[in-house]
């Protein structure tokens, strides 16, 4: 029973092992891609066919598999599939570790897929580590000095973050005598007051999580790492690992710390403050960037800020609302990131430059990619008719409903700031005259990804209820 419920993760981990083993036999380029896509598809089929309408607690409470888990599994699988499909362009650079790259991607995926289901501090900790350690390695896979630096920065800051998080967990454990999230919740609600030790534990834990999602001031590794990593890994970091991080924050905080109301409101407000800080500084920092990856890193940080609004809402409303909203935003964000990164990967590889200035006249050199890139950027701004608009609308609606209107106003003003730098890219693409005029061809697989994501962005922008319905069925049901 236990193992069957996590069969998608088992399949993914198994696929990773198969890839390693196959690598001993054959070094064909498409072999790892095919196998991993195959594994992902199988895992997705298993996820989709299983019924998780009632939460299943397995491994003695270490994991809770429910709608929330399965929804995020699907998102993560989809993102990973996207990353794998667009990685083909990086074959030349990653040839020496092509199979390992895929294996690591899938190992990380295993961890990430389990993160949203963590039902215990120990499993939370371990799944995070399982997810993040392959990312350290992948960031350094190019093995040049920038890539290694990216990896080192992430690893060292990540180590500090792990220690801080663990310290927080230790305090939570000490205060509640439990590591199981449900039990912790019960223990806290039976307390007469929230002690200093517990509060310290909760907030240190939050700090550790904030590293994961690159929230200010725990974000500083992110731009450097994003810039130095291979671009598909950047995409993976900014989409998948952020999504998993958000998911685990929601899981842990809603399950364990929603009672009593005062506690819930307190961390809600603290997340709100971090959110305001994150989006404002993220956007301001992005304003001056000329390196596209770095710019997207800061934009990603700003989006962390918007996502944290959802967490703040969860806190303030005691976990009542906000989960479907957050799920929708995560999906929209993932789509937009893929839509933006896929062309960026192809183009930067072709141009051998990450500078936005070199994108001049791209609209004439590769209309389809430029169109999808622009669409993705528009979605990131949050303009209709894209998924980004609906996502922001939902999240702002939720925040306004919870009395966080001040945060909404900060957020929408931030949208205005962000429009400036996103539009700057759009402007360069469409308005500047190209230096060279030969066409940039779009390879098949990334082409497929761009078209799919673009369709998804528009579809969700016009008919968001397609996903919202699903998301509403995928909330964490509190005991």
């Amino acid at each position, binding site marked *: 029973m236990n193992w069957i419920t996590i069969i998608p993760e088992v399949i993914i981990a198994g696929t990773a092992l198969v890839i390693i083993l196959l690598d001993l036999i054959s070094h064909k380029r498409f072999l790892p891609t095919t196998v991993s896509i195959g594994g992902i598809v199988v895992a997705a089929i298993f996820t989709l066919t299983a019924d998780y309408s009632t939460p299943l607690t397995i491994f003695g409470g270490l994991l809770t598999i429910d709608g929330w888990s399965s929804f995020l599994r699907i998102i993560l699988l989809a993102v990973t599939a996207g990353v794998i499909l667009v990685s083909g362009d990086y074959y030349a650079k990653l040839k020496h570790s092509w199979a390992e790259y895929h294996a690591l991607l899938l190992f990380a995926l295993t961890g990430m897929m389990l993160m949203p289901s963590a039902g215990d501090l120990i499993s939370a900790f371990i799944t995070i580590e399982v997810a993040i350690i392959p990312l350290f390695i992948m960031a350094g896979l190019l093995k040049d000095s920038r890539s290694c630096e990216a990896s080192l920065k992430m690893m060292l800051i990540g180590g500090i973050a792990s220690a801080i998080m663990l310290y927080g967990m230790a305090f939570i454990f000490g205060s509640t005598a439990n590591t199981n999230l449900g039990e912790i919740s019960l223990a806290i609600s039976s307390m007469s007051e929230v002690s200093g030790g517990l509060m310290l534990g909760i907030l240190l834990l939050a700090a550790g999580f904030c590293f994961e999602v690159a929230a200010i001031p725990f974000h500083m590794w992110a731009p450097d790492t994003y810039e130095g990593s291979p671009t598909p890994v950047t995409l993976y970091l900014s989409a998948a690992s952020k999504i998993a991080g958000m998911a685990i924050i929601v899981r842990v905080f809603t399950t364990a710390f929603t009672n009593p109301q005062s506690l819930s409101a307190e961390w809600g407000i603290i997340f709100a403050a971090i959110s305001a800080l994150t989006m404002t500084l993220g956007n301001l920092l992005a304003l001056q960037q000329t390196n596209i990856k770095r710019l997207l890193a800061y934009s990603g940080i700003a989006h962390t800020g918007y996502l944290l609004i959802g967490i703040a809402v969860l806190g303030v409303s005691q976990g009542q609302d906000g989960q479907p909203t957050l799920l929708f935003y995560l999906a929209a964000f993932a789509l937009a990131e893929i839509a933006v990164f896929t062309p960026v990967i192809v183009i930067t590889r072709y141009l051998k430059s990450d500078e936005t200035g070199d994108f001049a006249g791209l609209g004439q050199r590769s209309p389809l990619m430029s169109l999808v890139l622009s669409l993705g950027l*528009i979605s990131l701004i949050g303009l209709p008719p894209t998924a980004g608009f609906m996502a922001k609308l939902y999240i702002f609606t939720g925040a306004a409903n919870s009395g966080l*209107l001040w945060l909404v106003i900060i957020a*929408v003003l931030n949208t205005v700031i962000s429009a400036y730098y996103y*539009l700057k890219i759009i402007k360069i693409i469409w308005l500047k005259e190209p230096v060279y005029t030969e066409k940039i061809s779009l390879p098949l697989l990334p082409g497929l990804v761009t078209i799919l994501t673009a369709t998804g962005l528009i579809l969700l922008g016009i008919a968001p209820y397609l996903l919202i319905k699903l998301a509403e069925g995928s909330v964490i049901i509190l005991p």
Partner: protein
Amino acid sequence: MGILSIILFMPVIGALLIVLIPASNVRLTKYTAFVFTLIPLMLSLYLFGSYDRMSGGFQFEEFAQWIPAINANYHIGVDGLSLSLVLLTTLLSFISVLVSWKTSFRPRAFFAWLLLLETSILGVFVSLDLLLFFIFWEIELIPMYFLIALWGSGRREYSAIKYVLYTLFGGAFMLAGILSLYFTAGTFSVVELYQTDFSLLAQALPLAATFFLFFIGFAVKLPVFPFHTWLPDAHTDAPTAASIMLAGSLIKMGGYGMFRICLGLFPDEAQHYAPLILALAVVNIVYGGAITLKQTDIKRLIAYSSVSHMGFVLLGLFALSELSLLGASLQLISHGLITGLLFAVTGILIHNTHERHIKKLGGLARQVPVLTAIFVVGGVGAMAVPGTSGFIAEVTVFLGAFSTSVVSSAPVFTLISLTGILLAAAYILTTLLKVFFGPPKPTFDHVHDVTLMEKIYCGVLVVCIFAIGLYPKLIIDILEPVVASMALLWGG
């Protein structure tokens, strides 16, 4: 799918078709744009004719569930005001296509954006659901950004981004307002909100705050001092067609929004803060007019004159009497026609002479008599000379604003804003003098006069201006039920 939806989405379909046409086939592109703006125009004329003026209210409503989770629906419909604005928009879009007939720089993209712009503006006017309204409100940014930034002139990129950021800024406040309303009343439907008594509900925000959130959102668009500085830049640097759409139809979204939401939903707040807003209106009129006098670029001059003219809209709206509301609505439509004409003819002028600086132009009346005549008509409308729609609109605003019994300070503001007419005369007469009259300059000896097509589309606008000016019943009939029911909010 009702007629209204067809009007609304026809341009988008046209835009998609245009994208599919090969880039080399410019003719087909143009004719597609022509057809797909002509059909909405015809249909909206049909709607205008078949609108039931006796019963008033929202008609041709269409309803479909859209996002049930937050009770947002695809709900569209028009009343007299929005139908008039729809007609104005379809007309100006059609004219914009004709105006751009000679576009040679990437015509495919140009017409596609233009058509998209039409849909987004129409969407704002027909939406009866605040969320839908907001979406169309924001969508409009993208086409306009490209139209200004790609086909514009001067500091076009600066102007385009300024326009977008300004509008987003306003939209930010508006969104907050929409959300606050939604949490107060639990619906996005304008029709339901009209029937809601907010004072009985727990409010997400104080109503006055919500009112001002909306007000700022619309004020940026209208534009109201001190949020107006995007307008001269955007209008000046936009291509002619975009200028026409901007001045003729797009900034009307602000006035329409104020009418529909600021007044319709917050009558008490509107009344309470009316003196403040009327003061802003007076600033708009006088200050805007004074600045217009100082402009040396002919397009910029017309752009600033819009600031002044939109002040009359604000004056009429917030004087809160039936007559003043009628005046404001008339002014919205009349200004759309007049400024549309002025921008169209200025576009021809700049295109033919390659000169936009007033000081360098001069004595053109002899060389381009027809163009001069058309400009004179536009100018006369802007000056509110009787016979033109501008006169009807502004006089109605004055009569209504002065005689209002709702806002006690309105008469004083009305008297001050009368000077706006003087200022308008001053800048229009001076422009005519400097650009068209006086000794002809040999440099412009070979300037072409207007072509037949230009004559036709200018002629259409001229006819509309005079038709409303001479027989205002044409449009008052359809506006009457709207303003009458609105005026009931303050006791008729």
